[in-house]
């Protein structure tokens, strides 16, 4: 968010000697087409975060409203300093949500990166129907996340008529058993159930970026390796992997930023349960806001989510700027 300060165009130019007014005007003419987008973005995306920051320092529960008005948006009890942050870090529920967020994000990112890389390597070769295979593989990412989550929960995971247990049952019956094992996936392994559904959605995302990376490999280097007698494995290990590093970083970091914000899947598959087993930060913030009405705490948890994301985003921005520089120095 420091970028705001750096990016802000110079404030209105003070009256200057005549020879400079032209250049000042040209500068404004050049900036003009940019300003609507810039102003819109600052107002809609930055202002709310400042408000969140302010609210995070207030003792504000809708059920016990105080008499102090916060910018006319509602009444709070009193100023609480950093008390909400203390609550967030000491309250078991919120601490649990932080841990779940880390677990959920890292598992989904790492597993879908690994699967995505495997699929990208498979699809990098020519084989019959490759175009169709690529199209079909994108589908999981395009299915509406809420729809995907509900389908996984009810149509795949359901213990009595879900596809997973149905297939197990079918295989067992194929071998002469009366009845296959009945696994209640969501209740017995809630976190893996959410992770699996998300991995399924995000693997195509990783695959697409990694495949583009594989296909951007300079062919002359690959040919040189071939001429030098490097086998497939060596080529992959020593030429492809170093080249792929920035693509792996890019897809991993972008994926982390998005998956950190997972709300749809938790809301639809487990409602954060059983208990708080799958409650991540976005869902916990939602509960704190609309079930407990603790605005101050919700805002503090929101600020912590933002800070966590900024840490990941800093690395992401670094990768972006190296790709960007490469692009513009070509």
């Amino acid at each position, binding site marked *: 968010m420091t970028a705001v300060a750096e990016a802000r165009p110079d404030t209105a130019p003070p009256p200057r000697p005549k020879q400079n007014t032209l250049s000042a005007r040209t500068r404004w003419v050049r900036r003009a087409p940019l300003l609507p987008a810039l102003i819109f973005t600052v107002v809609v*995306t930055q202002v709310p975060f400042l408000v969140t920051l302010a609210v995070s320092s207030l003792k504000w529960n809708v059920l016990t409203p105080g008499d102090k008005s916060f910018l006319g948006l509602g009444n709070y009890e009193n100023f609480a300093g950093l008390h909400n942050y203390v609550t967030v870090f000491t309250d078991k529920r919120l601490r649990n949500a932080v841990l779940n967020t880390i677990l959920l994000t890292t598992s989904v990112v790492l597993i879908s990166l690994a699967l995505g890389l495997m699929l990208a390597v498979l699809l990098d*070769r020519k084989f019959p129907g490759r175009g169709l295979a690529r199209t079909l593989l994108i589908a999981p990412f395009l299915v509406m996340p809420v*729809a995907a989550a*509900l389908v996984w929960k009810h149509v795949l995971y359901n213990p009595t008529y879900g596809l997973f247990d*149905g297939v197990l049952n079918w295989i067992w019956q194929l071998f002469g058993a009366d009845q296959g094992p009945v696994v209640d996936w969501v209740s017995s392994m809630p976190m893996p159930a959410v992770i699996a559904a998300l991995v399924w959605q995000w693997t195509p995302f990783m695959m697409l970026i990694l495949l583009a990376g594989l296909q951007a490999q300079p062919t002359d280097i690959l040919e040189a390796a071939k001429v030098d007698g490097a*086998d497939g494995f060596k080529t992959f290990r020593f030429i492809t992997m170093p080249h792929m590093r920035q693509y792996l970083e890019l897809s991993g970091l972008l994926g982390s930023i998005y998956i950190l914000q997972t709300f749809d899947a938790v809301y639809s598959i487990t409602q954060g349960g059983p208990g708080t087993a799958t409650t991540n930060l976005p869902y916990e913030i939602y509960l704190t*806001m609309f079930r407990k009405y603790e605005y101050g705490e919700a805002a503090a948890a929101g600020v912590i989510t933002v800070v966590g994301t900024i840490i990941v985003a800093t690395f992401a921005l670094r990768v972006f700027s190296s790709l960007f520089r490469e692009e513009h120095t070509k």
Partner: protein
Amino acid sequence: MTAVTSEPTVTTPGPAKISRRERRKIKAAEDIAQKGGPVWTAIAWFFTLLFFAPVAWMVLTSFHSEADAATNPPTPFAGVTFSNYSDLFDRNVMPFLINSATASVVSTLLVLVLAIPAAYALSIKPVEKWTDVMFFFLSTKFLPAIGALLPIYLIVKRVGMLDNIYTLVILYTAMNLPIAIWMMQSFLAEVPKEILEAAEVDGASLIRVLRSIVLPMTSPGIAATSLICFIFSWNEFMFAVNLTATVSSTAPVFLVGFITSEGLFLAKLCAAATLVSLPVLIAGFAAQDKLVRGLSLGAVK
């Protein structure tokens, strides 16, 4: 990746030991020439179908009766019916679809109106510190929306715009603007600079330059950008579920409300899930070649 170490391409039996080494060499060469054998093809198709199976099952089940959808073991070849879809329309899915379409289409248009001039300013007439501006836009995309939900909720409530589709339009515009600016900037970078500079020298106005040069030369890019923005707005759930109630709820909110009020509902759920996903599946397949550029915000071509 073991898959890269050579799989025998030819499956004829009994190769001599010497020739195996030889053949491996040939195979390595073939790997680099980007060809795969039948084993390769089989593995690739196995995983593709594994990933596609839930989508296929969802679509298939949507055409089954509720009784056939809930059998165990599953019955993929049960009779086909369209009643689940007609039920959906009886249950008034239309207003939700219209709301989704309004929010996505209007916000996408708004994004284009804001992003195209911005990207033009950033790539053709370099603004001072223009990379900072680009990265500022990018950084807003990285901020988690949940952190802004509370103030947005309070402000929207204060100005009386709860349950108003234009609230979603504004939020989706902000959500997609960075993507569009980065994508459009990357498409504009491909337009020969001389053409744009020539127009500039001729003293053409901004609107004219945009209309007669930028729009025609980047129309594939604009199409791809619109499709990506459409996809993200159509699928958005968190703001939709928290900021709308009855009048302006969108398709994902319909889905969530739909399941709570049903008894035996697998087939109907699948029909609803398929129906609401269809526009994005179509848009995504249409934008396939540019999808990666959109997902990586223009960083990967």
